């Protein structure tokens, strides 16, 4: 917990540097409609990408985001640092680095962390999350490259890189629950990734693409506060340990277009044989 607080302080300092830069003109889309940054860099919630593109660029604008995220689980720490660009609310490009610190296993395995770089693109195919009856639909790719492959290789992963393909739909229902706006998202992802790719791609049990469903549901308490739940199915390709689905409960504070702070309780299930990994999640996003 102390570490989370220290991380929070570090990120706040970084945010203090980012925000003045970001505050210029982050774009014209309505507050919070860029979502926040997922642990894979695409705009969305924390674990699940949404159909909205990052930041606030509308059809005549450029924009983007910077994000820092950390989740302290029982035996691991997940962190992510990433940047996105949004061109005219049509194309989102993201680059980021994701790390899993092996807090408990590190000494035994002789490695401190698992890490990967993630390059993402997402395009808005059709519609609008606020104004269209059938919401907004987007398609995306996430190309992931392991930076260290010794451990994934040892546990049976087939590849040190992989590409996820996904289709997302998002819609805001105005005044849907006690006159509060409800944001619903659904994503179907084709993936070979083990633990999101941190344990490589494909495995001894299964080396093919599998379709996985992901979803999230959030309620805007007012235009600055969004609280909700996310769920993400995952494949189970490696024989050495079972892989579980992920879920979280989140609350995001979006005081204005330049800043978003997300706190969550995440449950990533069993990871590498260590059971029921859960903990606190904190993410900061600046938009420009």
């Amino acid at each position: 917990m102390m570490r989370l607080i220290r991380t929070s302080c570090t990120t706040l300092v970084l945010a203090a540097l980012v925000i003045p830069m970001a505050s210029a003109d982050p774009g014209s889309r309505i507050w919070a409609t860029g979502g926040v940054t997922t642990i894979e860099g695409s705009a969305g919630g924390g674990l699940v990408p949404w159909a909205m593109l990052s930041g606030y660029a509308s059809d005549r604008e450029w924009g983007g985001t910077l994000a820092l995220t950390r989740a302290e689980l029982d035996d691991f720490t997940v962190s992510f640092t990433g940047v996105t660009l949004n061109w005219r609310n049509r194309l989102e490009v993201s680059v980021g680095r994701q790390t899993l610190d092996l807090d408990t296993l590190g000494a035994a395995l002789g490695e401190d962390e698992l890490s990967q770089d993630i390059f993402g693109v997402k395009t808005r195919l059709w519609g609008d999350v606020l104004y269209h009856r059938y919401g907004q639909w987007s398609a995306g790719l996430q190309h992931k490259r392991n930076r260290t492959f010794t451990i994934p290789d040892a546990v049976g992963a087939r590849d040190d890189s992989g590409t996820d393909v996904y289709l997302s739909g998002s819609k805001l229902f105005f005044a849907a629950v006690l006159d509060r706006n409800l944001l619903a998202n659904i994503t179907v992802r084709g993936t070979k990734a083990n633990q999101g790719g941190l344990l490589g791609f494909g495995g001894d049990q299964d080396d093919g693409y599998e379709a996985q469903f992901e979803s999230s549901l959030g309620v805007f308490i007012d235009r600055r506060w969004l609280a909700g739940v996310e769920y993400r199915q995952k494949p189970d390709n490696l024989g050495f340990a079972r892989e579980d689905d992920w879920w979280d409960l989140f609350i995001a504070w979006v005081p204005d277009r330049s800043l978003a702070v997300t706190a969550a309780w995440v449950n990533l299930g069993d990871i590498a044989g260590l059971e029921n990994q859960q903990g606190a999640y904190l993410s900061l996003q600046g938009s420009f």
Partner: protein
Amino acid sequence: MTPERFMNAIRFTLLLLVLGGLTACQHPHTPDHRDADLYQALGERAGIETMVENLLYLIVEDERIAFQFKGIDVAHFHRQLSDQICELSGGPCLYTGRKMRESHSAMAITETQFNALTENLILAMEQNRIPTGAQNRLLALLAPLHQDIRGL
């Protein structure tokens, strides 16, 4: 499928059902007393007129859209928009202006401009201390106008 994964699939299906159910329940209320409540919450005719006035001040200072309103008859525009919101919210008014698609057809309104107007409307409602729920209900009634206003 292991029991845990089976349970996860069940949980996911439940989430989907909730999502689907909420989608299906989107238009359960016909424009009756619920919308008349909205008219009250907006402060009736006087409240709506003040809100539209606030909106006009915000528009004039917004370089993204101010030019689209140059040369309009402000009093006429104010009355018509007030009529429209009054009628939409269940108040005793009648909007007699042109259809949205027709009145905006020559303006080539971009998404950026549409978003700017939405933002200013929300700020105008906040200035008028309209409760969040009433703001959302009015936005629910106005959002479907997007396609016509943008000429899509």
